[in-house]
């Protein structure tokens, strides 16, 4: 179906809020090229379960499109309309199966060598609508705290090598009372700025303390049954030998809560669906807890744009070498403290980069702390770049001085 032929009935199967949103903006949708319409519809169909920040982005984007004259809209969409859809792509129902359409469209871009021009077009479009509708500043300066848990250790490993040049390295952090202080700070921020999905806690194991109910919490252990169900679903698909990877990836992305034994939490279906998406769409998130923490943090920052983000890395399982796997001598549940530390160090760096992508980056503060090694790094407006402090500090002092 061409976007021009879409009608209110086309969206009848959508969840209620998504349907209402699509119908409200039907006139704008009808004027878009199919590929661009599918990219937007992929978001619209999820509207009922989007975070507030995502909803606002979507609303702003339609407001921008609807504000353009016909000539400006045509100019803005020219690049998107340039790549003519392949016959296979035309057969996909972009309204009902936008995920599949976008997947196939991406494959077309690669095979037709249009990816570079599409990137340029998309960047130009984003810059234009962001100029017209700037992103909101956060309600409070953002803070991210990444803790490399006490079981992550490696002798001689140069911790925080990528982060340290951007802030202050603290050579000795007293672990006593450190967690209590971090949790106090997170809870206080959630109390002071009570925005929905504005404050998060993500754990790569099982949290060794209770989590303030005002934080949106996602933990590796809590999702263990879902991970098992997800891996089993993947194995079934692999063993069947049917279907290409795109089809299978779409199938995973379209996995429902029920299919992996996840009860739709009436109190917070948005969070339940977010958790499912981390496991269904993330690569390696079902297998390695370190990947799970990094990817969950990335997605939380990208989608929910929180003010407060608190992460704890725990050891991931060891990747057995081939000889141990073949001989059946390896313990697949054994932890890998060294590898986990390296993963988490890189993960912390990526979380800092992802935090920097959001508004208010100049006022944002980032803290990474290794419990086992007693070292920390703080990046932010109060943390002098490229410096080191050798004095022993408590976490309270770290927060008072640099955050």
């Amino acid at each position, binding site marked *: 179906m061409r976007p021009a032929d879409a009608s209110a009935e086309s969206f009848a199967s959508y969840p209620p809020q998504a349907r209402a949103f699509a119908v409200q903006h039907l006139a704008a949708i009808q004027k878009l090229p199919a590929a661009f319409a599918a990219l937007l519809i992929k978001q619209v169909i999820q509207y009922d379960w989007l975070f507030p920040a995502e909803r606002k982005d979507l609303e702003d984007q339609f407001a921008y499109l609807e504000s353009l004259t016909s000539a400006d809209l045509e100019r803005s969409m020219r690049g998107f309309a340039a790549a003519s859809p392949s016959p296979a792509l035309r057969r996909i129902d972009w309204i009902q199966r936008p995920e599949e359409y976008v997947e196939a469209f991406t494959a077309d871009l690669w095979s037709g060598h249009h990816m570079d021009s599409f990137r340029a077009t998309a960047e130009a479009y984003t810059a234009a609508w962001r100029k017209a509708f700037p992103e909101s500043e956060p309600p409070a300066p953002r803070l991210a705290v990444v803790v490399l848990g006490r079981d992550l250790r490696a002798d001689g490993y140069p911790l925080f090598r990528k982060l340290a040049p951007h802030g202050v390295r603290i050579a000795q952090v007293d672990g006593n009372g450190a967690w209590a202080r971090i949790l106090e700070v997170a809870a206080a921020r959630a109390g002071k700025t009570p925005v929905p999905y504005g404050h998060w806690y993500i754990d790569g194991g099982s949290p060794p303390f209770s989590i303030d109910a005002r934080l949106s919490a996602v933990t590796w252990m809590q999702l263990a049954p879902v991970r098992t169900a997800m891996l089993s679903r993947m194995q079934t698909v692999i063993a069947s*030998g049917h279907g*290409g990877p795109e089809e299978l990836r779409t199938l995973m992305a379209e996995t429902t809560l029920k299919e992996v034994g996840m009860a739709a939490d009436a109190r917070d279906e948005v969070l339940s669906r977010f958790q499912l998406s981390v496991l269904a769409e993330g690569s390696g998130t079902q297998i390695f807890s370190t*990947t799970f923490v990094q*990817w969950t943090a990335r997605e939380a920052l990208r989608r929910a744009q929180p003010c407060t983000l608190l992460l704890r890395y725990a050891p991931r399982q060891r*990747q057995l070498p*081939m000889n141990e*796997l073949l001989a059946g001598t390896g313990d697949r549940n054994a932890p890998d403290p060294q590898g986990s*530390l390296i993963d988490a160090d*890189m993960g912390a760096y*990526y979380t800092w980069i992802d935090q920097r992508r959001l508004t208010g980056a100049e006022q944002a503060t980032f803290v990474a702390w290794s419990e086992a090694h007693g070292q920390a790094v703080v990046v932010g407006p109060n943390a002098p770049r490229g410096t080191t402090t050798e004095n022993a500090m408590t976490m309270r002092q770290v927060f008072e001085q640099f955050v």
Partner: protein
Amino acid sequence: MHLPGTPGAISWNRREFLRNAAKVGASGALLGFSPLRAAAVPRRKKAVVVTFGGGARDEETFAPEGQENIPGMLSVLIPQSTFYTQVVNHGILGHYVATASLATGVYETFDNFAAVPPHDPTVFEYFRKGLGRPATDAWVVAPSNGFNRIGESDHRGYGEGLGAGVILPKHLLRAAMPAAAGSDYGHLLRDNYEDPYYTPELAGNEVQLQQLDQILRLSVGDFTQHALTLSSPDELSVYIARQLMRELAPSLLWITLHDIDIAHSGAYSLYIDGIRRSDRLCVQIWNTIQAEPEYRDCTTMFILPDFGRDADGDAGGNGFQHHRTGDALSRTTWMMVLGPGVRQGVAVDRPVDSLDLVPTLGSLLGFPAPLAQGKLLTEVL
């Protein structure tokens, strides 16, 4: 603020740090060329091509902070090589289709995950047809089932019966190991890291388990026993490659390493382990070339990643984990060339194309590659 790893940040210093890493001079400084190493004309030229399927980024290899991961390349290989600091891949960034493009000299456009042969003639077909070489003289050792069609195209003028034999060591190992134990190591032997769902049918020139003895003089028992001493599939690939070199001494041998691609799991430490292993294995392959009389002094070795991985600063990706954005870092990589007649300690800064490999191999070994679209890498000819 300038996010690290953005294209702007890459371009300004890429060549500089690669040159520093290699501690070699720019190719413009012709007076810096070393004397030709092989004074005598080689009796019969051979070529060994090693690609890293599962590309590695500069940051983890030749950038200052990455050099600790490639001690073998820095201390052993680079000083003996002509080093191209910018090899740009303009094609699809999927491992099979990209490696097929390297092998045909044409940017192939088929679905990366489809079990199809390249549509343009491969270097193996050019080589065999052009020089009238037998099937035993061109081989591919590749990591996964998806590569089983890489030895031979479906091009009408070349194609069937003119390609290379393909050995898929993981496939052989899966066939050799007791079925009951399969589930314990299934994930290790699964097809690839990029897409764990992909389980293609085999239908190419690949060697089957029962041919091991006939081709490599290797019993299934010895093969599995040796596999039990190795820590990774790439080590198994190199073991097979060395066996091939001893038994058949092919003139054209193509080895694709793939351990690095575990990066798709998101575990940075495992990605680094893969790079360090590839570094060690490249030195091992070079040492084998020097140790085998059939190869010593007549073999040119090419080492290149098929492409890079996404930059940390590209919002569309997740850094090292994938190669999906098509950004500058994921498209730009390097190549080193070593062997008799190849100038040592030279860095070539001009950008070259991934497609340039095939015509260069053709010129080096003396066969035409009429449909390949790359240009000659004159610095190594």
